[in-house]
């Protein structure tokens, strides 16, 4: 499939550099999945998100307002300038109406800017920074599955209450890491904890966390928190084991941990980790049914919360286009904010004025190896956090001009 696309691209190149400028045509509704296909975030979203989006289009019937729905995808390699180039090209020459998924907060922010200026929808399921519904909000931007505030609130407050009142951060040095560190710091301090120190590691590209872990060890903080994600978190936790952080009495906090990460780590290493998540495949019959269908298309790998989010958000988008009778961005977003979301992913989910999709989150703990009955049976649900409690309240002070 990829080879065919590559051949097609080469032909375009040979035919002489460039498509003619085109107006946005209304003959097709195009959804562009932009994510990391080969780097540290390839497993938690990657091709799985593309599969989820395709499932949604198929389940919806493949057409909306009588026009076919097409899906394109691209690898942004976690670089904002590469992503900008792709999105500009998508909008200007390929009639893409929605840019979806988009992990990596620095990229998401760049995409938000472009879609705001060119009046297209940014349907973000995977990036984390709460700035997307704060100072960088957009009238056509929607932040679907989770954000740094929800994670910080869930995990941070819980761990402090359990006795972890001094924290040391190992942070990925870009928008996401900074946002996660900032929100968690606020939550920790609000619960009367202290911050013992913080260190930033380059992103992407760091595979050896030893020098940062050594500093965390030296700080003697009760909790060593990883404000990073994907392969970075996996490597950090594994290497923490190599250096004996846990046996030395410190507790590890993975602030953003996906099901795919726990799968890579293995329960022996990951057991006991407290995680805040927006979806778990084994929560109830409805989630199990959908996840089984997804797993069959995804090499028997169960969905992460963001992949489920891509399905749900795509479905909601298609419904909104039909309801709005147009694919013009602002009209569709108005409908998306008007209609509630009731599916396996969220019950009574609602998209607020600032673009934040509010739904119940879950506090889970990774099971011990003997407690698990099979692959991907990894979490026990500690409690459900109601949406209004989990997410940041909508107030003008957080910087979004859409909030009165």
């Amino acid at each position, binding site marked *: 499939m990829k080879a065919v696309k590559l051949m097609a691209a080469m032909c375009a190149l040979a035919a002489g550099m460039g498509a003619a400028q085109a107006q946005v045509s209304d003959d097709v509704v195009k959804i562009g999945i932009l994510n990391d296909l080969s780097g540290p975030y390839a497993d938690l979203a990657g091709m799985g998100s593309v599969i989820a989006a395709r499932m949604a289009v198929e389940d919806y019937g493949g057409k909306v307002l009588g026009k076919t729905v097409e899906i394109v995808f691209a690898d942004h390699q976690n670089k904002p300038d590469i992503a900008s*180039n792709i999105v500009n090209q998508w909008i200007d020459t390929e009639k893409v109406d929605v840019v979806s998924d988009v992990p990596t907060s620095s990229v998401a922010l760049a995409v938000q800017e472009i879609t705001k200026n060119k009046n297209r929808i940014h349907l973000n399921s995977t990036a984390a920074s709460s700035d997307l519904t704060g100072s960088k909000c957009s009238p056509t931007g929607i932040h679907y599955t989770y954000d740094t505030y929800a994670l910080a609130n869930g995990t941070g407050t819980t761990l402090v209450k359990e006795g972890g009142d001094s924290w040391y951060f190992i942070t990925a040095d870009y928008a996401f890491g900074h946002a996660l560190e900032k929100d968690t710091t606020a939550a920790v301090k609000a619960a009367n904890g202290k911050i013992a120190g913080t260190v930033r590691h380059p992103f992407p590209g760091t595979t050896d966390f030893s020098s940062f872990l050594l500093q965390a060890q030296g700080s003697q903080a009760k909790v060593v928190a990883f404000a990073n994600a994907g392969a970075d978190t996996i490597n950090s936790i594994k290497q923490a084991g190599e250096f004996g952080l846990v046996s030395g009495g410190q507790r590890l906090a993975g602030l953003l941990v996906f099901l795919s990460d726990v799968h890579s780590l293995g329960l022996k290493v990951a057991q006991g980790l407290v995680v805040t998540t927006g979806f778990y495949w084994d929560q109830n019959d409805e989630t199990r049914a959908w996840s089984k269908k997804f797993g069959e298309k995804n090499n028997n790998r169960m969905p992460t919360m963001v992949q489920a989010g891509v399905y749900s958000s795509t479905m909601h988008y298609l419904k909104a286009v039909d309801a709005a009778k147009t694919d013009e961005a602002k009209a569709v977003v108005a409908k998306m904010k008007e209609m509630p979301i009731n599916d396996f992913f969220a019950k009574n989910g609602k998209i607020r004025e600032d673009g934040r999709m509010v739904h119940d989150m879950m506090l889970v703990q990774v099971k011990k190896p003997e407690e698990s009955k099979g692959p991907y049976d990894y979490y026990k649900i500690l409690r459900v956090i109601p949406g209004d409690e989990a997410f940041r309240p909508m107030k003008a002070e957080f910087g979004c001009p859409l909030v009165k």
Partner: protein
Amino acid sequence: MTNRASANGTTALYALLLVAALAAPFFLYPNFLMRAYCFALFACAFNLLLGYVGLLSFGHAAFFGFAAYVTGHSAKIWGLGPELSVILGALAGAVLGLVIGGIAIRRQGIYFAMITLALAQMLYFFCLQAPFTHGEDGIQAIPRGYLLGMFDLNNGLTMYYFVLGVFVLGFLLIQRTIHSPFGQILKAIRENEPRAISLGYNADRYKLLAFVISTTLSGVAGGLFALTFQIAALNNVHWHFSGEVVLMTLLGGMGTVLGPVVGAFLVAAIQQYLAAFGAWVSIFQGIIFVACVLLFRRGIVGEIIALLRPRGKAEAETVSVTPQVHEPARQGV
């Protein structure tokens, strides 16, 4: 007589290209064209150093990328207009060129290349850490502003002509430099440095001046790039990008006038069309590098020139394509 004819031929070619460039945005994707112009200016500036002075700088991205940051910062944070921002970017390129050139110019050949590479890498790490560059996020949402307070650069067509205009100016400047007495001295230094020194020319100073001219124009290209794409990121100070400008020049034809422009357009095309495929861009570029080095050392334009001109003329008139680089004796173990 034949010189006149070929000069007329060249002028006609340039006129044709200019007309094509003026009409192009109505046929091709303007974003692609603007990217190509920025790269072309960068490659021409680089070629000044490689093809005419014989110095291979492997860290040239530092000047382009750093200027992009400076221009972005001055446009976004200081609110300066686009002309001022680009000028500041050019100045940044000049100052940085003076510093790096000052250290590196004492050495030649491979050593010069290695030193520029390492110093550029130092700058990369500086850009990674410095707060004003915002590290991995880069400077985003750079405003294009109003040119001279009058022309709204947010209009795609206006921006296109602005970029084209700056490119043409830069190109002409390079041409003037090459064909001036200064350019002749550079040529002499490249052909036989000891002799030039014996004639009383301070070779190092001339080389440094050429270096600074090159880096200043690279800075203009970088600043222009930042305004066009409204983002300044680490990619543009990374050594892979330094390698890309070498590729553009090599592919197009080192030491030819239009070679770098052709090379830049091709490399921009590869980036644009294979962007969604990530790793294939690198693989493709690597293959082209290898092919050029093993088989097409004269580059595309170089090969065309060799085909069009009778054999004797080709040797006499075209600039020597393999730079004569001097090397100190190999050091022992």
